[in-house]
């Protein structure tokens, strides 16, 4: 029997349990991608129920649909243009008033709404009473109380969805904005309706209200219309800021009139969450606890990731050797073995790191602490021209730049986000450590620890200077205002965190993977041709390239061998060490390599310092480049990140080497 199709959209404020409900509805049948043209994540899934095939689309969590952020535009365009059969709004019962604000906007869009009341237990525990029958009547929408993770609640919900789809009821629930504004709405509606070719999916009243509120996105949508000029005349005649305030006032007023009839709220008692906040955001304890938690998260990441990283390393090395020795012809064996498997393996080593960082990030987010981290760090970040929300991505950068750049998605403001993405590569990731360990260990003996620490500090200083520089030049303006909910603390759900981890981990493998593959093949070709030379030797193309760029790098104290190692390091920075091993013919033994480095007059303590600084800064590795491209959606910014990085690295290394030489080192 042919199944009948239903399309439903999930919407709601952030932190109301929307994702948990989505996971409970669709289980593993999910698809994660992006909305066309933007980097807002799109999640959809399917569920078969009775004789229906139901498609569930998880819209981004938003407080409103007023086009403050890309998320809000994506959500409302979907509702208007795709016309889902039912829009389910997940509502936090312990925070009804603000949640209902979104409801008023959904109603204006003319969508079929069904409300899922979540977190009722928290509201009840606090002493709130919600009269669901009354609420249903006042809002003229079906309301279901669910505990999202229970099967029974899900079946009830799906039954209601089907019932609502079949009934096709239309609620004429509208908010009145007072005679002055209503007159203007009518005027604009009338003008708009004269355009026969207008996009009829957009309700006239909604478009008119949006225009009165100064919505530039909607303005752009009608800018081709022949009536545009007339509409603009009406809009220019009003005090738009006043109207904006008045319209928001009226929405909350409408909520306030019905609210006391459907809910009695207990007096503001101190909740558990408030008590936790008394400690975690305490004037004296807040920062030490924050630092301890971050440190703990890193320890955990490395403790858990290291065995897996070793396993991947061993497995890919073994596999590469196996393929090299068993495949024919020889060039193919070399390409697949040394090039693809070796190169991809070197990048895959970081996958455990990325997975664990995302898992911990999701736990922090689900618990509500992530918002506090931004709250605690905002003042410091603001001073360097950044937003409090940029702190966590930058911190993650110490583990791996790739998830760090992906985590910058939580930053709403485009400029804040762009700056974060551009400066994260200067944060010294785990892959750069082996380079420091080799050179600092070889040339600085007992001062090695200090030198390594200095490299981390250098990265942070360059990141801060770059942020300031970008703010003053090409990404002008102040950081966006900090307007953020501090949600109640909750126990994060394990299932949600695990799904989050998989989604993001696989996104890294899939998207960055294609660029990594291209990168490693290019490097392999350069190291193996002209055919017959020893891999990566002086006679190969990469050797020639090393010689070619030597004059450019000479002022930094690098010879052609170091130049070659740096070119290899583009795949993943720790490869610099391995390729030094190849170039010095020392095999895998780091002691042998140390000895040969010391014996080489071409490399001194000073030039090794310059080299460490250069490797830290010179250019993001291919995986990071891939993710910068994906997250900015722009080759221009990706190229900028590369060129800017190389320039900064060159200048820094030049100052170190030439300065040191002048001082007589």
């Amino acid at each position, binding site marked *: 029997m042919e199944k009948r199709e239903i399309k439903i959209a999930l919407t709601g404020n952030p932190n109301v349990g929307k994702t948990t409900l989505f996971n409970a509805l669709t289980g593993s049948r999910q698809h994660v991608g992006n909305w066309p043209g933007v980097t807002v994540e799109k999640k959809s899934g399917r569920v078969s129920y009775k004789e229906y095939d139901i498609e569930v689309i998880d819209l981004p969590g938003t407080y409103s649909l007023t086009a*403050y952020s890309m998320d809000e535009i994506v959500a409302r365009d979907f509702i208007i243009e795709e016309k889902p059969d039912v829009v389910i709004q997940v509502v936090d019962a312990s925070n009804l008033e603000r949640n209902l604000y979104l409801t008023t906007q959904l109603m204006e869009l003319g969508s079929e709404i069904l409300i899922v009341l979540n977190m009722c237990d928290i509201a009840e525990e606090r002493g709130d009473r919600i009269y669901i029958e009354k609420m249903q009547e006042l809002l003229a929408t079906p309301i279901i109380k669910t505990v999202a993770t229970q099967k029974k609640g899900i079946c009830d919900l799906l039954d209601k969805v089907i019932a609502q789809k079949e009934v096709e009821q239309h609620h004429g629930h509208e908010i009145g904005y007072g005679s002055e504004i209503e007159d203007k709405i009518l005027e604009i509606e009338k003008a708009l309706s004269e355009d026969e070719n207008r996009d009829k999916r957009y309700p006239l009243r909604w478009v008119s209200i949006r225009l009165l509120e100064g919505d530039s996105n909607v303005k752009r949508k009608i800018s081709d219309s022949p009536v545009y000029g007339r509409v603009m005349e009406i809009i220019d005649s009003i005090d738009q800021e006043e109207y904006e*305030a008045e319209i*928001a006032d009226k929405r909350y007023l409408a909520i306030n009139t019905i609210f006391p009839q459907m809910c009695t*709220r207990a007096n503001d008692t101190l909740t558990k969450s408030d008590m936790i906040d008394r400690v975690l*955001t305490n004037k004296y304890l807040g920062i030490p606890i924050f630092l301890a938690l971050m440190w703990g998260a890193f320890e955990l990441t490395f403790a858990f990731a290291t065995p897996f990283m070793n396993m991947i390393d061993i497995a890919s090395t073994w596999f590469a050797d196996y393929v090299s020795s068993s495949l024919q012809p020889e060039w193919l064996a070399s390409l697949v073995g040394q090039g693809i498997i070796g190169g991809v393996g070197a990048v895959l080593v970081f996958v455990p790191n990325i997975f664990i960082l995302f898992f911990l990030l999701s736990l922090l987010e689900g618990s509500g602490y992530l918002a506090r981290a931004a*709250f605690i760090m905002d*003042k410091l970040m603001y001073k360097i021209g950044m937003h409090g929300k940029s702190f966590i991505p930058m911190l993650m950068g110490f583990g791996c730049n790739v998830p760090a750049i992906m985590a910058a998605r939580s930053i709403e403001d485009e400029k804040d986000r762009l700056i974060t993405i551009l400066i994260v590569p200067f944060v010294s990731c785990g892959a750069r450590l082996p380079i420091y360990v080799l050179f600092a260990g070889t040339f600085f003996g007992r001062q090695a620890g200090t030198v390594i620490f200095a490299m981390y500090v250098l990265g942070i200083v360059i990141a801060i200077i770059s942020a300031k520089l970008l703010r003053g030049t090409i990404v002008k303006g102040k950081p966006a*205002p900090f*307007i953020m909910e501090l949600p109640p603390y909750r126990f994060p759900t394990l299932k949600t965190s695990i799904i989050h981890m998989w989604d993001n981990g696989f996104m890294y493998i899939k998207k960055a993977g294609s660029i990594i593959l291209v990168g490693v093949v290019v490097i392999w070709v350069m190291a193996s041709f002209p055919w017959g030379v020893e891999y990566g030797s002086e006679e190969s193309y990469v050797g020639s390239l090393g010689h070619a760029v030597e004059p450019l790098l000479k002022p930094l104290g690098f010879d052609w061998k170091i130049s070659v190692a740096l070119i290899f390091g583009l795949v993943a920075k720790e490869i610099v060490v391995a390729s030094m091993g190849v170039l010095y013919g020392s095999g895998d033994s780091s002691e042998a390599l140390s000895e040969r480095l010391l014996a080489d007059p071409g490399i001194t303590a000073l030039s090794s310092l310059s080299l460490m600084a250069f490797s830290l800064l010179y250019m993001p590795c291919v995986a990071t480049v891939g993710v910068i491209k994906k997250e900015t959606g722009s080759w221009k910014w990706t190229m900028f990140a590369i060129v800017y990085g190389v320039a900064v690295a060159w200048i820094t290394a030049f100052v170190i080497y030439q300065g040191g030489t002048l001082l007589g080192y």
Partner: protein
Amino acid sequence: MLDIQETTLDTLKPGEKARITKVRVKGAARRKLFDMGMVAGADIELVRNAPLGDPMDYRIKGYHLSIRKEEASQIFINRL
């Protein structure tokens, strides 16, 4: 009678309550503040400052909202 005296939101001390009279913030932040419930007539309480002094943690409409002093100084209130 209450002693009504108009001042700005950033002058509130932890634990003090007030009613919003006017939002003078400009630009995109203005609409965002409205969306979050910072409208004239709403009751608001300062819960605490962040450990470094800024931003602030306010309670409004039964939830916690954090904004910087900079925006708070453009929101007018009557102390309650």
